[in-house]
């Protein structure tokens, strides 16, 4: 039973659905409080969930990325531990410098909430459950600032939007990993695609990266 610390910031929104997805796959979800300088004892993997940490003030994820717990998340990542950032969690990881690039306002200037097809761009990370390159996963997005901006050569694209990309990400990037592959961030919400009732179980392929 992998012990997964789920970080809660003021304004985190998807903590409970992330915890449910982890538990549903046999992991143990524990809460990591933003003000603590250390992760809970026994933490094996870290999940930074979606939401609007600090009300998205200044820049999405900017204030959360400077909070005490992020020092511990950085040390966990540097030691090779797995870290997954979803939506606002992805923004926090970029602002913290644990992943390259930044997330900007969607090209449509609107909140985009819909099921998306994502193409596996790199099959050699723990985050796509061994699906081959080119395989298509169905996972929803729900965000206002989801357009990844950066130098694609500096990133390791793991998932790309398949077909239309209303967000306007550089190279249609939906999710990237660090070079070692142990840190992953994506704008789509895999925790909302872990139940047949929600129309797709493909999210388990991503969440599973925390558990294997």
């Amino acid at each position: 039973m992998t012990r997964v610390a789920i970080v809660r910031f003021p304004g985190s929104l998807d903590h409970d659905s992330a915890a449910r997805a982890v538990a549903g796959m046999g992991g143990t979800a524990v809460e990591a409080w933003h003000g603590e300088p250390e992760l809970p004892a026994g933490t094996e993997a870290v999940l930074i969930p979606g939401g609007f940490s600090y009300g998205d003030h200044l820049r999405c994820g900017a204030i959360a990325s400077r909070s005490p717990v992020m020092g511990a998340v950085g040390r966990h990542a540097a030691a090779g531990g797995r870290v997954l950032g979803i939506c606002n969690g992805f923004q926090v990881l970029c602002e913290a410098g644990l992943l390259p690039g930044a997330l900007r306002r969607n090209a449509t200037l609107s909140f985009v909430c819909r099921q998306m097809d994502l193409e596996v761009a790199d099959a050699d990370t723990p985050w796509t459950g061994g699906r081959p390159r080119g395989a298509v996963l169905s996972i929803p997005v729900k965000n206002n600032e989801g357009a990844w901006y950066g130098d694609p050569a500096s990133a390791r694209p793991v998932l790309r939007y398949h077909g239309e990309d209303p967000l306007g990400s550089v190279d249609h990037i939906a999710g990237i990993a660090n070079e070692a592959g142990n840190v992953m961030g994506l704008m789509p919400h895999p925790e909302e695609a872990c139940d047949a009732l929600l129309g797709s179980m493909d999210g388990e392929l991503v969440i599973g990266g925390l558990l294997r």
Partner: protein
Amino acid sequence: MSQVVVTVMPRKGVLDPQGQAVRGALTQLGFDGLGEVRIGKRIELDIAGDDPVGTARDMCERLLANALIEDYTVEPA
């Protein structure tokens, strides 16, 4: 206390959809001859100490601006 004004703008070459939307609306209102429109933010800080501008610059580097997508200027008010 000295007041310092920080201006943060999207970097040249970085898509500014907000500026583009405002540009479209202004054109629709009949404002011709409009070039680029870019939207940023102004931050007013009251800072104590000998070097308020230097302190504000440090704040920009560490939090207020993201150098990948934004440029900033710091001026005493």
